[in-house]
Each structure stands twice: as C-alpha cells, then as structure tokens.
C-alpha cells in the first residue's frame, strides 16, 4: 500500500504501467491525523488511483455511507474508476469482523486494495488490547488472502485511517503503540497551517518504518474538486526518528516542518501562505 500512496502523493506518476510498478503495493499503511486533516479525501484519492491501475476492484470500508464524494483530482473521478470501488458500511465492530472473516466465501475477483476509514470508531467499541490487535491482524490477514487470490506477482494493498486526538502532553494514543506492531508504515496528516484545513491545504508525512528519511508532501484541494500535490523538499539528513515525539499527532509533525523553515512550497500551490509558527 505504501507504494500506491507514494505514487498518488508523487502526482500520480503511474504512467509507467509495467508489471513491476503495479505488482507490489508495499506494506500496509496507517493513515493518522486529527479530525479534518484530509484522511478520507486522501484515502479516496488512493482508491481511485488503484482502481485506475486496472489490477482489480477496490474495497472501501467505512462505518457510515459517505454523504458526498470526497474531494479528489478531477481526472481521477472518471465513472469507470468509481465503478471499481466497492463501498461497504459495516455498522459495528462485530459486523466488520464478520465481513473480514467471510471474504473468502464471496465469489468474484479479489480486490487489489482494501481500505478502512474510521478505525477509531470500531476500536472505541472494544478498547481492549487483544480486541484491537485482533482487528488489526484480521485486516492484515484479509489483505494477505486477497494477495494470495490475485496470484504470484501481485498483491493487495491495505490502508487504514485512524483519527488521532491531539494530545497536549505529547503522550501516545494508547492504541497507537499496539497498531504500530501491525502497521509499521505510517502516514501523518495535518492541515498545512492553522485554519488552512478548511481551505483544503494539508501536509502528509510518510514513514515507512525502515531507516531512512521520511517523505513529505503538501496537498491542496481546490473548490472545484481539483487536487494538487507537491513534494515537500526534504533535508539531506532527516532528524532521527524519535518514537515518542513522532506519535504525538499533529504536534511533532510541525516540529519536523519547523526544521525546514524558510522553504516555500513548489508551484501549484499558489495562494497558499507558508507559515511556520511554533506550536504550543
């Protein structure tokens, strides 16, 4: 999944549709951010991107039917792509588990991407560690089963969105440590700056869980549905991953951004003022 996400965030350079680019979707990704940080929109954009790659249907699970289609790039919202995204709305954790545990009973082509939006709502029902681990593990197992069905050189990606609370003291959300065991790759989202969330400007930071620099992007949703993504220039030497601070929701992402002060976003984000203000 991390590779598909990276392609979306790299401006959808999936023009090269050779076997090697579509075969591996990479490790499962946990999308993290506070309310309104663009998670659903990004998940939807990723779903359409994967649907467009033509390797199979996409399964999008969320608790409530989407009231309207999330913002996305205009080109991606072609009817053919939308048709390939199957939405299902398990209303409770039990029904979500039943859905995941019984996917092998359903005939038809296996999805190439499985997305779950709003994991926090399902976890809230059963906050115990074993229950949370079981849900995470069953998600991984379902994606693994789809990969098995897809065949030898293809795999099913997995992307899960979890709303995080902004913790004043920087403490880890209690379940996040547990989820990291199953989702080593994480993508943190936050509004580019205070107030810009309403205008649809967001920052995404992808950590693969392996040593190496993080990749960051800025993306902006325009009122007409257009979405522009630009890579955020990364430092040659990134700050060393600090588990404690990197789990503190939006706060530490800002501190990472603070290290890159003085830079302005690239073209395509006109009208967006880049503000670096220290966060409390």
């Amino acid at each position, binding site marked *: 999944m991390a590779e598909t996400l990276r392609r979306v965030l790299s401006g959808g350079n999936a023009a090269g549709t050779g076997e090697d680019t579509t075969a591996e979707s990479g490790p499962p990704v946990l999308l993290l951010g506070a309310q309104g940080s663009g998670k659903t929109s990004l998940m939807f954009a990723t779903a359409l991107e994967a649907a467009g790659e033509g390797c199979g249907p996409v399964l999008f699970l969320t608790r409530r039917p989407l009231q309207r289609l999330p913002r996305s790039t205009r080109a991606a919202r072609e009817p053919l792509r939308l048709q390939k995204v199957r939405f299902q709305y398990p209303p409770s954790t039990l029904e979500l*588990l*039943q859905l*995941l*545990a*019984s996917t*092998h*009973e359903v005939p038809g082509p296996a999805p190439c991407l499985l997305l779950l939006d709003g994991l926090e709502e399902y976890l809230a029902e059963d906050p115990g*560690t*074993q229950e949370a*681990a*079981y849900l995470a*593990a*069953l998600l*991984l*197992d379902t994606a*693994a*089963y789809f990969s*098995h*069905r897809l065949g030898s050189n293809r795999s099913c990606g997995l992307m899960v969105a979890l709303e995080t609370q902004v913790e004043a003291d920087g403490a880890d959300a209690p379940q996040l440590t*547990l989820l990291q*065991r*199953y989702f080593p790759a994480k993508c943190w989202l936050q509004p580019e700056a205070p107030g810009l969330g309403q205008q649809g400007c967001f920052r995404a930071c992808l950590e693969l869980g392996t040593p190496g620099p993080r990749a960051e992007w800025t993306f902006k949703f325009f009122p007409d549905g257009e979405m522009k993504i630009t890579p955020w220039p990364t430092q040659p030497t990134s700050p060393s991953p600090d588990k404690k601070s990197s789990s503190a929701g939006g706060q530490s992402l800002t501190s990472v951004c603070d290290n890159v002060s003085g830079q302005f976003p690239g073209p395509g984000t006109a009208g967006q003022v880049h503000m670096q203000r220290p966060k409390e």
Partner: protein
Amino acid sequence: MAVALPEVVEELLSEMAAAVRDSARSTGLLKFVFGSSAIQALDLVDRQSITLISSPSGRRVYQVLGSSGKTYTCLASCHYCSCPAFAFSVLRKNDSLLCKHLLAIYISQVMRNCQQLSVSDKQLTDILLMKKKLEA
C-alpha cells in the same frame, strides 16, 4: 565400525551427523532467544499439536492444541494468537516476541510436520471469528 560401508552410505551418515549437530545448535539458539517458550514450543511440535486448516477458497488459519487441552487460533499471515499469554506478554508488556503457540507454528513450518485439515469456507469463517465451538 570396522566394516567399510559403501561410499554413498558413508556420505549420507556424515550428512545426517552434521544435521544433528546443526539441529542441536539451532535448538540451543532457539532456547537462547526465546527462553522457556522454546522448550514448550518444541514440545508442542513433537506432540503434533499444530494444525493448518484450509478451505476450498485457499484461505488458511492455524490452530494449536495447547498443553492445557484448550485450542488456540493463530492467524497464518501475521502475529496473532488467541491465547492469554499473547495478549499479556507480547502485546501488553512487550516482553516476548511470540507466544509459544506462534513459535511452535514457525518451527513446524520449517520442519514441515504440522497436521492438515480441510474444512468448508463457512467453517473457516467461524474459526477466524474465534467462535466457541464444541470441542471434538
């Protein structure tokens, strides 16, 4: 032995001796890394307690008959076991990498000696959902 054996048999015996030495070394390493869980896991393997359950769909799951007689369900694709030790030592306290059941599964995969069981797709769903079922 004084009697000379055919060369091919000599070679075979020598390979087997090396394998036994390697196996002793591997077991030693296993105990070093996993402690007492290693011994319990090896015991589970010896007693053929691990079953790989699959259905016509191709989906699979493991079940391990624990030493207490209880059956635990373990996922095949990632680390999850329904036993209390997994929830406590692995998840909560982060003391251990694996519980003995998961370790036993890995060992039996290497040694290729777990039991196989075929069930229907519907039954596999029930197993994955960890439903309480009548013990056989």
